C-alpha cells in the first residue's frame, strides 16, 4: 500500500488532514457543525456540475463550496442560522441530483464523491490541492487570534473592535476551501465527520487553546492515515473509516475526561 500509485493518496490525505484539523477546531468552537455538513453537499453538486460540462472537478468543488458558504453567511444575517444552513443544504443537494441525472457519470464516480476514494486526487490535481491548502492555513494563521476571540466570546470581541463580520466571512471562505479539498478524498457525506470528530475529541482532552489545535491536527492525521491504510487493506470506502474513527475518538475522549474527573475528585 506504499506503492507509487498510492503516493498521491498519502500526500493528498496528509494535506487534507492538516487542514481539516485546524479548520475543524474552529468549526467546533463556533458551533458551525451544521454549516460544515451543508458546505460539502454544495461541493458535491459542484463536482457533479463540473462532470456535466466537462471541466475540472476541483473547479466545481471550489466554486460551489464557496457559493454555499457565502450563501449561508448572507442569509443567516436575515433569518435564523440553522434555517439558512438547512435551506442551502437542500438546495445544493437538489441541484446535485439534477446534475447527476442529466450527465453520464459512472456510478463508481458518484459513490466516490459521496463516500470518498483514496485515489480521489489525481497527480495533476496534487499541485492545486497543495497550493489551496497552504493558502487556507496561511489565512487561518493570519487571523488566528481574532478568529479565536470571536469564536470564544463574540460580544467581547466586537466591543474590543474586532470586525466580527469580516472574520465570519473569511472563516466561511476557508471552510469552503478546506471542504473542496477534502470531499474528493473523504466524500461529501463524511467530510464533516473529519472536521468534527478529531477537534471535538481534542478539545475535551486539552484545556489550552494552542495545544488543543495541535491535538486536533494530530488526531486528524492519525484518523486519515489509519483510514487510508484500512481502506486499502479491506477495500471499503475511506469515508466509512473516517466516520467510525471520528465517533470512536470522541467517545474515547469523553471516557478519559470522565475518569480524570473521578480520579481528581477522590
Amino acid at each position, binding site marked *: 500500500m506504499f506503492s507509487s500509485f498510492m503516493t498521491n493518496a498519502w500526500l493528498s490525505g496528509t494535506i487534507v488532514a492538516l487542514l481539516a484539523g485546524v479548520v475543524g477546531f474552529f468549526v467546533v*468552537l463556533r458551533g458551525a457543525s451544521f454549516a460544515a455538513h451543508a458546505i460539502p453537499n454544495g461541493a458535491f453538486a459542484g463536482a457533479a456540475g463540473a462532470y456535466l460540462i466537462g471541466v475540472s472537478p476541483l473547479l466545481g468543488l471550489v466554486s460551489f463550496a464557496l457559493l454555499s458558504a457565502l450563501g449561508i453567511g448572507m442569509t443567516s444575517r436575515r433569518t435564523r442560522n440553522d434555517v439558512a444552513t438547512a435551506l442551502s443544504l437542500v438546495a445544493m443537494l437538489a441541484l446535485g441530483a439534477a446534475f447527476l441525472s442529466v450527465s453520464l457519470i459512472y456510478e463508481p464516480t458518484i459513490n466516490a464523491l459521496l463516500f470518498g476514494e483514496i485515489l480521489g486526487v489525481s497527480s495533476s490535481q496534487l499541485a492545486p490541492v497543495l497550493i489551496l491548502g497552504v493558502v487556507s492555513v496561511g489565512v487561518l494563521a493570519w487571523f488566528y487570534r*481574532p478568529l479565536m476571540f470571536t469564536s470564544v466570546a463574540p460580544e467581547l470581541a466586537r*466591543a474590543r473592535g474586532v470586525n466580527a463580520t469580516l472574520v465570519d466571512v473569511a472563516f466561511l471562505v476557508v471552510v469552503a476551501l478546506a471542504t473542496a479539498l477534502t470531499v474528493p478524498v473523504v466524500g461529501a457525506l463524511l467530510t464533516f465527520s473529519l472536521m468534527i470528530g478529531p477537534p471535538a475529541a481534542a*478539545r475535551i482532552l486539552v*484545556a*489550552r487553546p494552542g495545544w488543543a489545535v495541535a491535538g486536533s491536527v494530530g488526531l486528524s492525521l492519525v484518523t486519515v492515515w489509519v483510514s487510508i491504510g484500512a481502506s486499502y487493506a479491506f477495500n471499503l470506502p475511506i469515508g466509512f473509516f473516517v466516520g467510525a474513527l471520528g465517533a470512536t475518538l470522541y467517545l474515547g475522549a469523553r471516557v478519559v475526561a470522565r475518569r480524570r474527573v473521578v480520579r481528581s475528585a477522590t
Partner: protein
Amino acid sequence: MSARDLSHDSSQGLLEVRHVNVSVEGRDILRDVNFSIKHGEFTGLIGSNGAGKTTLFRVILGIQEHASGEVLLHGEPLTRANRSIGYVPQKVLFDPDLPIRARDLVALGSDGHRYGLRRRPRALHEAVDEMLDAVDAGAFADRRVGGLSGGEQQRVLIAHSLISRPELLLLDEPLANLDPGSVQEIIALLHRVSQRQRVAILLSAHEMNPLLPVMDRIVYVANGHVASGTTDEVVRPSVLSELYGHHVDVLRVHGRVLVVATALPVGPAPNDQHPEFVVE
C-alpha cells in the same frame, strides 16, 4: 421632559454623553440622554429591566445602530471600540468543553484583536498574572472558563477587560444571578480596582442598595429618560416622579432606599384615595 444633569460640578469629565437619542422602528428607547463620568469615579447606572441600560452601553461602545447625539471621551468624539473603554457584557455563555482557560481569556483582552501570528511576549504573561491577582482569580487561572461558577467567571471577565488598562470600565448587570455573598465580594473588588488602577466604573444594576456604600454618582434611567448626580441629588421624590411620569415616593429604611410608586385610583375623588405602594 428633557434629561437632567443635576450635578453642580462643571469640571470636564472623562466621558460626556450629550443629547443621545435611540429610536428603533419608531419606538424611542432613549430620549435626550445627558450625563458625564469623571476620572476614577464609581457610577451606578440604575434602572429596571428594559429601561435602556444595555442600549446606553452599546451607544458608548459605538455598536448601537439608530443612535444620534454625541459621546465624548476627554472632550473628543469617540471612535469605535476605543481601547480606553473596557466592557463586561451582561451574559457571556461559555461551553464547559471550551478549551480556554481563565488566563487565556484574560490574554485575549490584550491581543485578541490583533492579526498575524506572534509569540506572546513575557510581559503579557506577567500582565495576565497581575490582572488575575487583582481580581482574586489566581487560584483558578488554569481552569477552563466554562467550568467556573458565575462569580468566578465575573472576576475573569473583569480581569479580561482591565488588561488593556482602560480609563473607563462598563459593566452590564454584573451582579445579576449572583448570590448575596458574591455580590458583596464583586462590589468590594470593583471598588478596590477603581481606586488602585484609577479606572472609572459605570455599572448597571436594577437594584441600587448594594451599591450605595461605593457609588460616587448615580445615573437613573426610566422611560428612556435619565437623571444623574449624587445619590442624594437624584433619589428624591421630585426628581424620580418627573422621570417616571407619575408620582413616586422614596423611602429610607435601615440605610436602604426603596422607590415606591403611588398607584392613583382611576376616576374622581382624589381626596379619599387609598394609596397603594408597589416596590419597584
